[in-house]
């Protein structure tokens, strides 16, 4: 049975239809965290976040406090919020920007105060038309309320936040690519080193890039203290997390759960959560953390929903999005569609990613739609190995950013787990499920 004891932290206003309004926000401890933070020294605020051991919620899971401490000392620094949520099957930031925008603004302001940054940008994916409106409205409200702009709540601290719309490019979720897009250019990732944002980011100045969900946790952390946050979860995975469940389950949705205290079995099968497989069917496999993550099988259902717990099984919790495959799901088709996505979204700078993703997609296509050969299976693995040598986890990299090494995950998983189905596709001259 799932443990659902922890109260929600970032989705606490979910039951209210007007959760996006200033009125509801103020009635539910809105700005209490910010007011408390402004009464502390910036270093104390940062220390609370450090004590919370808040891991970045974007996908890589890097500790937010550590990220902050790496910031180069400079006359000007920028805070950039990554709301370009585009990892397939991830839909948590979509909720946060549409339904809890003030909480995000409060979190950003707390972070800016801790870092003593006076200019922040929130990069939202362009497809979130309503999200852009809601976040802009929340910013307007905050200015009117004295929670943003000059001399916030009489503290002497000033901050401006600008919402920046993306324009449809998965790669802009990669932080250096996002910075390029924010500078008005094509979203080409920058090479690291030297372009570590904390050293050389937006306009060449030190820049912190944090995810929307990461920021949304800050008001609670300051209100209750870092220790209270760290008391939730286990090990390195503290607090709660928004898990996005989709695919062949009866009740797909977003669930805020305490880290580590629940397993994949809980979230997929618990009647209050995923409520089992569609039509009472059998689980075949699942993706534990976005399409860049290697797949899991039924044997891994009891792995807890935690950063290291999933990493120890050679995959990643990533963006916290779980996709469930049932017995009727064709693994070749699933892996082909994921590869098609990467092929479409490769920015084109690095040859292994640009060419490799297209070749892989075409081979997967012919296996699925007819024209595939038995040899294609080894050819796929060989190509995957060229993009990410050794097909290890965490993956080796031959490209500027991690989009490249994410491409092989689905194909490699599918072949490892369902090689006989690939053979059947080749001998059947197309999908065996049709």
């Amino acid at each position, binding site marked *: 049975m799932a443990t659902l004891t922890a109260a929600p932290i970032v989705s606490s206003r979910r039951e209210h239809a007007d959760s996006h309004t200033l009125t509801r926000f103020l009635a539910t401890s809105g700005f209490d965290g910010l007011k408390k933070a402004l009464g502390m*020294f*910036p270093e104390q605020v940062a220390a609370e976040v450090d004590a919370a051991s808040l891991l970045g919620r974007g996908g890589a899971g890097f500790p937010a406090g550590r990220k902050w401490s790496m910031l180069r000392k400079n*006359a*000007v*620094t920028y805070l950039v919020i990554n709301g370009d949520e*585009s990892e*397939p*099957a*991830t*839909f948590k930031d*979509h909720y946060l920007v549409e339904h809890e925008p003030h909480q995000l603004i409060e979190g950003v302001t707390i972070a800016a105060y801790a870092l*003593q*940054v*006076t*200019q922040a940008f929130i990069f939202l*994916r*362009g*497809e979130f*038309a*309503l999200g*852009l409106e809601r976040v*802009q409205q929340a*910013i*307007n409200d905050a*200015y*009117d309320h004295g929670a943003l*702009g*000059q001399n916030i709540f009489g503290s*002497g601290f*000033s901050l*401006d936040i*600008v*919402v*920046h*719309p*993306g*324009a*449809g*490019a*998965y790669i802009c979720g990669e932080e250096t690519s996002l910075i390029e897009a*924010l*500078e*008005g*250019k*094509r*979203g080409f990732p920058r090479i690291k080193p030297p372009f570590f944002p904390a050293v050389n980011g937006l*306009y060449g100045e030190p820049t912190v890039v944090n995810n929307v969900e990461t920021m949304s946790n800050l008001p609670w952390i300051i209100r209750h203290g870092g220790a209270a946050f760290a008391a939730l979860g286990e090990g390195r995975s503290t607090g709660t997390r928004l898990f996005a469940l*989709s*695919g*062949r389950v009866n009740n*797909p949705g*977003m669930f805020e759960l305490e880290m580590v205290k629940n397993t994949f079995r809980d979230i997929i099968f618990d009647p209050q959560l995923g409520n089992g497989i569609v039509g009472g069917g059998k689980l075949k496999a699942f993706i534990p953390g976005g399409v860049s993550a290697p797949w899991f099988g039924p044997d891994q259902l009891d792995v807890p929903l935690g950063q290291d717990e999933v990493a120890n099984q050679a995959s990643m919790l990533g963006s916290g999005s779980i*996709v469930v495959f049932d017995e009727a*799901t064709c693994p070749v088709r*699933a892996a082909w*569609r*994921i590869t098609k*996505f990467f092929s*479409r*979204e490769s920015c084109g700078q690095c040859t292994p990613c640009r060419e490799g993703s297209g070749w892989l997609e075409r081979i997967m296509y012919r296996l699925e739609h007819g024209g595939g050969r038995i040899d294609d299976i080894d050819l796929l693995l060989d190509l995957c190995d060229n993009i990410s040598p050794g097909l290890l986890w965490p993956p080796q990299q031959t490209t500027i950013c991690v989009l490249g090494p994410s491409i092989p995950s689905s194909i490699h998983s599918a072949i490892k787990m369902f090689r006989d189905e690939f053979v059947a596709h080749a001998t059947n001259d197309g999908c065996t499920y049709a």
Partner: protein
Amino acid sequence: MSHFSTELRQRAEELVALYPNRRSAMLPLLHLAQEQDGYLSDAGMAEVAELTGTTPADVQGTASFYDMFFLEPVGKYVVAVCTNISCLLAGGEELLDHAQSTLGCSVGGTSADGMFTLEEAECLADCNIAPCVQVNHRFVRTTTPETFDQMIGEIREGRRDSDIPPHGTLIRVRRNGVLRNTRDALAAERAVAGDARDARKAQETK
């Protein structure tokens, strides 16, 4: 002579003023240009070049990277059906096929009356209500052929104008609040904040 309308030009100049570097306004300005013309016309991109201090070639080179910008005219309503993994598992490809027959055009094409352009989308981050459909980047949440057709019918009759405005993702985004955004201003402010903090600290430790 400005290609942008007077109102749009003013919004454009306000957007440019939000950034320490005018080129940063590129993407929002391209959204505005598309809002006025329905796509990125040469004249629209030339005006963006002027506003951002770049060249029309640079603007086009940037715009062509991004899926949301159209360099050719498209329908008044862009219908995007997602077929990525979660939607695939919920019948996204079948819904896309259905959309082609309802609209009478193939993926990437525009309906005969010029009203709808159909796109196959990558993940739109609404995976629990799958297959996901957006019209002009508004989530319409029509997951079945029947509800899809009903929604298209309502748009044709002009009954969805309030929740699905013409395209342009910033069409209803307006900002209040003035900025102090030059690099010098930010640096000065940070220094002042630092001094105030040091003074407060010194006082508290006394």
